Structure formats: structure tokens, C-alpha cells
């Protein structure tokens, strides 16, 4: 019977980890987080716009944008008056989110709850016998 995960198991994506790693490297720096947050909030803007919004020099912004573009998190596009605008590119974020989803999946807690439920159910079904045991 076909299994929904057979595709992933048969063709492991070699670059999944590399993509996730680039996202986490990008997010490790507070200025880059601020740049990404600005792009997510206001949409595509120029490096100059970002330098006005953030307490960082335009040169530093440009350096961070180059790294973000290399990681595929930001894409440069032609804007008005031939100024380059930067747009957030969300696909790598979604790969990193899968990594986080795997870490956040709490099957230990869930299976503990299942055990507790079954124990309680068994106690409840054994409940009516308890009074007769007290008479002994």
C-alpha cells in the first residue's frame, strides 16, 4: 500500500538541512532579524529605506542584504527610478519551520496523556467493585 511518506523516504532532499541552516544563521544576527521583520511588515523596500528605519548604517544594511540574498531569504528586484528593492522570500523559512515542527512535536507528553487516560478509564470501570471490597 502506498505510504504518504514514501516519496520523502525514497528521495531524501540533500539540501533541506543546508536551507534550514542558512535560515538559522540569518536569524542569529539581531540586525538581520530586524531587516527581515521590516520586510515582512512593510513589504519590498530599498536599502536606503531600511537604513532610515533601522539604527544601522546603509553599508551595514547592504552587507546583511547580500548575505540574506545569498541564503535565498531576500530577493532583489527593480523598483521605481531604477532603485533596487528587496523583497522577503518565504520558502526557506518554511523549510526551517519544518525543522522546528519536528523539534516541537511532543510525542512524549502526548503518550503520557494517553497512558493517564487509559489508567483513569480502567479505574472508573473498576470503580463499582470498590464498595464490596471495603465490606471484606
Amino acid at each position, binding site marked *: 500500500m502506498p505510504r*504518504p511518506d514514501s516519496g520523502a523516504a525514497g528521495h531524501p532532499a540533500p*539540501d*533541506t538541512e543546508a536551507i534550514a*541552516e542558512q535560515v538559522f544563521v540569518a536569524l542569529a544576527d539581531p540586525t538581520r532579524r530586524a531587516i527581515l521583520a521590516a520586510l515582512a511588515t512593510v513589504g519590498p523596500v530599498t536599502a536606503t529605506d531600511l537604513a532610515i528605519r533601522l539604527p544601522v548604517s546603509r553599508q551595514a544594511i547592504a552587507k546583511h542584504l547580500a548575505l540574506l540574498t545569498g541564503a535565498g531569504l531576500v530577493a532583489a528586484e527593480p523598483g521605481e527610478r531604477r532603485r533596487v528593492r528587496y523583497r522577503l*522570500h518565504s520558502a526557506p523559512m518554511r523549510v526551517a519551520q*519544518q525543522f522546528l515542527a519536528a523539534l516541537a512535536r511532543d510525542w512524549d507528553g502526548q*503518550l503520557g496523556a494517553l497512558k493517564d487516560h*487509559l489508567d483513569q*478509564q480502567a479505574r472508573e470501570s473498576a470503580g463499582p467493585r470498590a464498595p464490596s471490597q471495603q465490606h471484606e
Partner: protein
Amino acid sequence: MAFPDRIERTVEIAHPPARVWAALTTAEGLSAWFGQEAKIELRPGGAASMRWDNGHTAEMRVERVEEPTVFGFTWHIYGLPEDDPRRTYVEFTLHPDGPGTRLTVVESGFAQLPEGTYQTTYDGNTQGWASELGELADYLDAAA
């Protein structure tokens, strides 16, 4: 470091497989330990859903039903947008273990990438929105 594609846990449960099966595959059972509310149509291809008090919901699709041994479903990957087609596969396997049950849960598919459409789909979406908003702006400009 490796991207975790598969999570596997095995627990010993002091109750027979029939009890565990009911807890995994009925709305009453699921709502007692997993979600706060649950619905399930127990057949391959059937729909199931769970709801939590914090407003979070999960939509599942039942994939394998082999009472009382194997129950499998797929669900959406937590944190990804609703329209993302990727899903993980969860499979519970029940083995009698004396008077109890050895229960294994495997969730797999965390490391998958969308097949072949990785770049184009998302570019298509963002450009779609950009052009639609551009058309709206043009329309409003013309109306002004």
C-alpha cells in the same frame, strides 16, 4: 546535526490493545487525551479533526486502519501555512505485550521539500499578490 525526518517512540501500556485502539481511533478516545474535541471517520481516506481550547485545530486524513494493529493518518505540518501541501505521516502500531500493549508511534516526513516546485510555487504566489495589489492601485488611481 541532521534534519530530523522521522520521530519514533515506543511505550509500554498496561492495558490491552482493544482499549488502546479505542483511545486512538474514536472521537471519544481522542478527545480524552489528544485534542479537547475530536471527530473521526474511521476508514482509509476518511477525515478526522481535533480542536483545542486555545483555538488550535488539526485536520487529519485517515490512511491506514487495520484493527487492532495499525492506525495511520497524515496531517498538516504545524506552523506552515494552511495551503502548504506538505503533510507528515503518523502511524501507530500496537503489539500485545502480556496483558498490556507495546505502542509505537512514528511520525515521518518533516524533511520533505515540495516536489519540484520549490522555487516557482512561492515566487508565483508572491508575484501574484504583487500584481493584484498593483492592479488595485491602478484601479484606485483611475477612479480618483
